[in-house]
């Protein structure tokens, strides 16, 4: 993991000091809430329906046990004993008092964390594959590049007042777990036909009210030029992106209005000017950062674990959990363990202080002190010995963290919705809970297989409904909460934007509709076909019929 040196430490501490001054000026009445707003937003502090919300960055999703314990401490000391993991690898605290926020930022700085650029029209927390450094299919660990971007983008003097917020995601695997095609900039590390590793650069993807899949702006960027290329894109955007309408100010609008070829032309022209101007890091600094992400001291182990096989044979619950929640690791004898934060009846992504402590403890003991936060609002332990899986499972069970539903129907992404968010049209959390309940009978979820349900409380699409296999969007119909279904979306390497399936449904109807969609799929799927694949084969009309035929009959 990256560790701060005195430079990183100084920058983060100076930021806290500045913010402390700003909060003092606000509390003493020297500045008004209006004047304070842009300042607090630069430190991730929002005003929500009932209270302030503080959003803390978990850069590229990586946490040490010590950091996780500090997050638990903050939840206990300054919040109501829990935190909320977001789709952008951040943690949100929903109830901090303004007067406490400088102390919270200090506590974060103590463990090399911050809330820098978690809001505002700047480059946000860079996100990545939660399996980085562990995935079987990656060409190299993408996190050194994320850290390089984190440093470069922190307090960037030119790009702190962009037309709109700006999100960058990095992956290094064939299988895209970082949703790079729906980011302002998506970076995919891969090996080209000459055997060199570089970035495929995508630009202009995004969700929100006008969803777009990103375009390839450059199919091969030599790694050492990453920062100058990013700087070229950002400069073209900063100068020419729209600022007259917040809804049209994201880079995706610019790219799609100009056309990708014209946009590429401008970026390449700018890049040619600055490519060798000293923006890019020298090799030594890249190596320095890369060394922090060296693989942990794995043991040489056989691929199969007898201890694991024996436990799985005698404990069916464990066998199922292991099948659903663990993933192959590149190191023989190890596995990646997913911890679901979607237990039945709980808001997706919420985690209590005690659970954070438990997860930290388990990571320390069994996963080289490392945890990851995923963009699907779960947590993972990247490096667990197969021999230890049963012990890990039991410890997770004791902390109510052993829900086995990763990638299944109840592993739902949902935004905070009307329960917290001032912009919401409708609630999303209770819908997620009721859908999960609907499929809770033994064996049902397993039979359905991979199904990504994503719920947003309004068109801003924080719940990523556009890229849900089944997407649900809260709409307002004469002051009542209604829901619109979209079908066939994906945020992975086969990215697509879901298609709208027809008129809005009441909260009761939408639960039934999801169930009918799933029933239709189960009745019509071919061997081994996922919901998404069946949808792509059969088409919108047939699934639409499945929703509405019965809805009218009822």
């Amino acid at each position, binding site marked *: 993991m990256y560790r701060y040196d005195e430079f990183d430490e*100084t920058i983060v501490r100076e930021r806290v000091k500045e913010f402390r001054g700003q909060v003092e000026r606000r509390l003493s009445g020297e500045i008004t809430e209006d004047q304070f707003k842009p*300042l607090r937003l630069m430190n991730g502090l929002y005003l929500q329906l009932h209270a302030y919300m503080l959003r803390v960055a978990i850069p590229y999703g990586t946490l040490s046990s010590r950091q996780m314990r500090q997050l638990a401490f903050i939840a206990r000391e300054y919040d109501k004993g829990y935190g909320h993991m977001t789709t952008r690898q951040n943690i949100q605290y929903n109830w901090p008092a303004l007067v406490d926020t400088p102390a919270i930022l200090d506590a974060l700085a103590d463990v090399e964390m911050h809330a820098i650029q978690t809001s505002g029209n700047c480059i946000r927390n860079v996100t990545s594959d939660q399996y980085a450094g562990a995935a079987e299919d990656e060409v190299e660990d993408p996190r050194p590049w994320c850290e390089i971007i984190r440093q470069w983008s922190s307090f*960037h*003097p030119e790009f*702190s007042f962009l037309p709109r917020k700006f999100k960058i995601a990095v992956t290094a695997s064939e299988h895209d777990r970082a949703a790079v095609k729906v980011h302002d900039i998506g970076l995919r590390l891969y090996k080209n036909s000459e055997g060199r590793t570089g970035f495929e650069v995508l630009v202009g993807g995004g969700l929100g009210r006008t969803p777009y899949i990103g375009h390839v702006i450059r199919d091969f960027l030599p790694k050492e030029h990453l920062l100058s290329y990013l700087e070229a894109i950002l400069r073209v955007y900063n*100068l020419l992106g729209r600022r007259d309408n917040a809804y049209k100010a994201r880079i995706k609008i610019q790219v799609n209005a100009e056309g990708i070829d014209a946009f590429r032309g401008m970026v390449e022209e700018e890049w040619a*000017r600055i490519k060798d101007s000293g923006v890019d890091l020298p090799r030594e600094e890249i190596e320095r950062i890369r060394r922090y992400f060296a693989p942990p001291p794995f043991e040489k182990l056989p691929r199969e674990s007898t201890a694991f096989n024996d436990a799985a044979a005698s404990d069916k619950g464990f066998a199922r959990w292991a099948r659903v929640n663990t993933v192959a690791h590149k190191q023989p004898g190890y596995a990646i363990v997913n911890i679901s934060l979607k237990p039945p009846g709980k808001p997706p992504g919420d985690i209590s202080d005690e659970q954070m402590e438990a997860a930290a403890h388990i990571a320390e003991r069994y996963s080289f002190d490392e945890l990851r936060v995923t963009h699907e609002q779960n947590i993972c332990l990247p490096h667990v010995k197969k021999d230890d899986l049963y012990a890990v499972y039991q410890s997770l069970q004791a902390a109510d963290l052993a829900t086995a539903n990763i990638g299944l129907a109840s592993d739902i992404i949902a935004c905070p919705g009307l329960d917290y968010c001032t912009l919401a049209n409708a609630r999303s959390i209770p819908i997620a809970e009721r859908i999960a309940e609907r499929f809770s009978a033994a064996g049902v979820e397993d039979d359905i297989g991979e199904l990504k349900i994503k719920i947003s409380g309004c068109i801003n699409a924080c719940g990523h409904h556009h890229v849900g296999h089944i997407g649900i969007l809260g709409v307002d119909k004469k002051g009542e909460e209604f829901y619109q279904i979209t079908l066939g979306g994906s945020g992975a390497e086969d990215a697509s934007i879901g298609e709208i399936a027809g008129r809005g449904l009441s909260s009761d109807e939408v639960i039934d509709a999801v169930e009918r969609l799933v029933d239709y799929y189960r009745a019509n799927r071919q061997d081994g076909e996922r919901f998404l694949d069946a949808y792509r084969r059969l088409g919108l009309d047939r699934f639409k019929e499945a929703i509405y035929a019965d809805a009218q009959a009822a």
Partner: protein
Amino acid sequence: MPTLKLREGALAPYKDAKPTEISLQSWRDGVRPEGGRFAIVVPNDTDIREIAPSLASFSVVILDFPKFRDGRAYSQARILRDQLGFKGEIRARGDVLRDQAFFMARAGFDAFELEESRIEGFTEALRTFSQVYQPAADDAVPAWRLRAARAVAA
């Protein structure tokens, strides 16, 4: 509005005679007032490279912040300094707030139109960070360079 000049980290009111201001549009129209060099006022939606051929005629370029959130002039300033090699004054006009001071100075601004009463807060803001991560148009040395220097010394 007084103009405050940034010199070696400190802000002080303008002492010298101010050059004659001229808008970009007048310049385009061929207006050339008496006197040697001018302060040209460039809107933030113009390509700053347009004035590259005439830079020798300007001792000051005035860039605009219609709202503090509108950050186009940061890029204009950087292009002026880094790419066009402009050595004269780059002055920030408009919605110039203390919490932008640090960014502006790094992007190449060395003069600000603001009330003298705000000097103190503005100067404090200029010193928000003693370390930076990236090279820009000022002479701050990015952390990676200092790290490399230290590694060599060790």
